[in-house]
């Protein structure tokens, strides 16, 4: 079942002359499928991921998430229900505890506090952070922070996980742990996973690899 479909995405940034980043990029993602997007720095991988995650609008083309076309008004709700983000810089709320961070998407979706905390504790246990619920995010190590970010991305039970260089700030040991955790979770929970990465080994572990080149997505095997 296709859970994410991007058709002919174009994106240009205003400057003189305008910078065309995407020039008709298209992709499809099935439930439980893991997809790596690779490309040179500055090719627009993060921009593509943000467009797929409805954080940004494309200049042309459409994104369909679980059958719904992302439009301006619908985007926040779609994000909250269907998408979980994992960023290279973790982007945790530093002054909140790990549990509060994990529960935040649930609370945004108006889940009751009791229910949210119950689920949050379970997710933290799943990512191996049991007992760190009350620790402030700013006091965690990089690897722990990224685990909290993964737990947070899973909190609303989204269909799609979008990871932007999730291991970019981690050493090799933590990096492997996070990669395995992400891929295992995607498979076990049948989530679609798109990873933007420079790490060829990580990309190799995914079902498919797409290369962003000259604003278009092409299968890596064609290169």
């Amino acid at each position: 079942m296709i859970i994410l479909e991007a058709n002919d995405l174009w994106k240009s940034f205003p400057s003189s002359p305008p910078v065309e980043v995407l020039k008709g990029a298209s992709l499809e993602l099935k439930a439980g499928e893991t997809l790596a997007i690779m490309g040179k720095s500055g090719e627009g991988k993060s921009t593509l991921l943000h467009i797929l995650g409805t954080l940004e609008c494309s200049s042309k083309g459409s994104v369909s998430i679980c059958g719904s076309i992302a439009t301006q008004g619908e985007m926040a709700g779609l994000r909250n229900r269907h998408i979980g983000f994992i960023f290279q810089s973790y982007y945790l709320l530093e002054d909140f505890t790990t549990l509060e961070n994990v529960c935040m998407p649930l609370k945004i979706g108006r889940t009751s506090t009791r229910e949210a905390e119950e689920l949050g504790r379970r997710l933290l246990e799943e990512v191996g952070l049991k007992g760190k619920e009350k620790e402030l995010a700013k006091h965690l190590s990089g690897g722990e922070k990224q685990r909290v970010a993964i737990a947070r991305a899973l909190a609303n039970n989204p269909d799609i996980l979008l990871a932007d260089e999730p291991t970019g700030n981690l050493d090799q040991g933590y990096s492997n742990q996070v990669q395995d955790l992400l891929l295992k979770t995607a498979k076990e929970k049948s989530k679609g996973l798109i990873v933007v990465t420079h790490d060829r080994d990580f990309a190799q572990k995914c079902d498919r690899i797409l290369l962003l080149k000259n604003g278009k997505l092409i299968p890596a095997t064609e290169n």
Partner: protein
Amino acid sequence: MFELSFIKKILTPKRRQLSTSLIALLSVTVITLVVWLVTVFLSVTEGIERGWLKKLTALNAPLRLQPTEEYYASYYYNVDQYSLASQYLSKTLGQKAQSLISDPYDPEIDQELPKGIALPDLEDGGRLKDPVKGAIAALESLRKDFPSLAFQDVQLSGALLRLDLIRQDRNSAVPSDHRSQLTHVSYLASFPEKNPNLSELIVPPTADDLNHLLYLSSSPFQEGQTWDALLEHVQIQTVKPRSDLWRISLHLLPEKTPFRVGAYLHKGEVSHLVVPSAKAGGPSTFIERRGDHLFFWGEDFPEQPLEDGVPLFAQGVQELNVTHQIAEAVAVEGKIQNHGISGEIPLSELLIVDASFKTHFDQSPSSAPIWPYFGKDAQAVLPSVSSCTGILLPKHFQKNGVKIGDRGHLAYSAPTLSGIQEQHLPVYVAGFYDPGIMAVGNKCILVPPQITEAINASESGFTLEPSEANNVFVWLRSINDAPKVKTALLDALQKKGIDKYWQVKTFREYDFAKDLMLQFQSDKYLYTLIGIIILLVGCTNIISLLVLLVSDKKKEIGILRAMGAKKRSIAAIFAFSGATLGVLSCLLGVLFAYLTLRNIDVVVQFLSLVQGHEAFNAQFFGTSLPRELTGRALLFAAIATPVLALLAGLVPAIKAARLNPSTTLRGE
């Protein structure tokens, strides 16, 4: 509500965010100060206004019925001048209300009516309409809805007051009297005994008045009341000797108690003894009473009995407590050299320091006090003494040295057979009252209605607008009811067909108060406007704070948006952060305002100290500023502050909501 937890986090001061924390603290401090200032200011000004309105309406009444020109041109009013039954005299509203017949004219007896007189205004049944009795009935009927309503007709007149001020001249070597005269052109108003505020308006007699009354009654210049009669309704609490050196009876001293004493010798014999009231220091000679005799000893001579009749004086005794009164003497207790003394002393040797005066009686007293009192049903009574009528003067006369008991007369001109002659009505000062705020406040004397009737009937040349000279005053417990009562009264008068004879005015429409009312109104609007402007300036701090916060929390805003938070949630976080600061400042400001108002006298003293002169004119603002936190001030603070703070938070909130999450996150 994730928004609330976010508001809590961003508003909690942190060392890491020192600048935002300091600005937040500054914002709260500034708004707290503004709320404090505005609340105190509004409360005090409103309190002063309330006090003034109370003063304005306590005597003048919040509502008046004034006869119109049509009333004075009517057959009903004018016919009395041509009727024997009315003794050919126009009647006051009070006399009209009491008269048994509405139309006193009898064509059989009375002369023919002049052609100019208006035609009688008749009811359907042919009877003459009675505007006064009709108005009284209308007012009575309003008591159902307004039980506190009280009314009475009040007359104004004018006369020359002359008072003889007889004072004891204590400076002369031989006790003597000093006489002077006070002359004052005065307005007279009939004593409004039904005014429910009278007990607050009448200034109670003082111990000074009582000393004066006792002095007058023993003065050869003036025939006074007996002391028994004067003291019947007085309870004397404390007295003091008339002079520092006070001759005492040896029986006041306790037995077998030694007193240090100064002995004065004349030709080797003790001429008199002085006992100082203080124990420490002084002479080292002593006396002791044993029975009816005094014994005397010193350090250098043995004890010896003193001859009877050696004068004994006490020096410096300041206060003696009265245990009970016995006719013209009092039983006292006091202390000399820390030893208790007690005994009976004639009042003539003493000055009264403190006394309470009975002014309220359950039954009409058999012998009335000479000051105004409240008899059965709390009805006020202005007494008379023999041929003298009691009058009440505005309280400033008291400050100028006039005392209760001073006698004199009211002079006015009246036509007699031999021409215009000055007439004298003997009067005495029965008391003083607080005139509050009224056009002729400082010149208006309250007199029994017979006096105003007599002077007005004499056509003495003292002229007032007829509509002002005789009104029905209507008092209400709450002056805010005045417009409602006015409407109901006009309605009732209209139903009786007598509305054309009456003009109903509330205190806001009184000619002499109009300007004051307008001033109050414009002051109120001005102060509120100033308050809002100051508050607005205070709230701009919130804008600065929130702009800084939005800039500081861009990453967090991006994270929340990535997790699916809607724009309006982000806007709400920052808008309500502003409102929260507003509410917090408001609570603190109101608390400080409450504490300030509770201690307003200390604040005034402090301001006076700083300025080097009185901060507030007592004549204008009263002896003490209002200390009550008023509802309007509280409402202003409770609504205006959070609303303005919320509005101030809107601009940064909209800015926060419009942030592009993608740009924000990539920027980080």
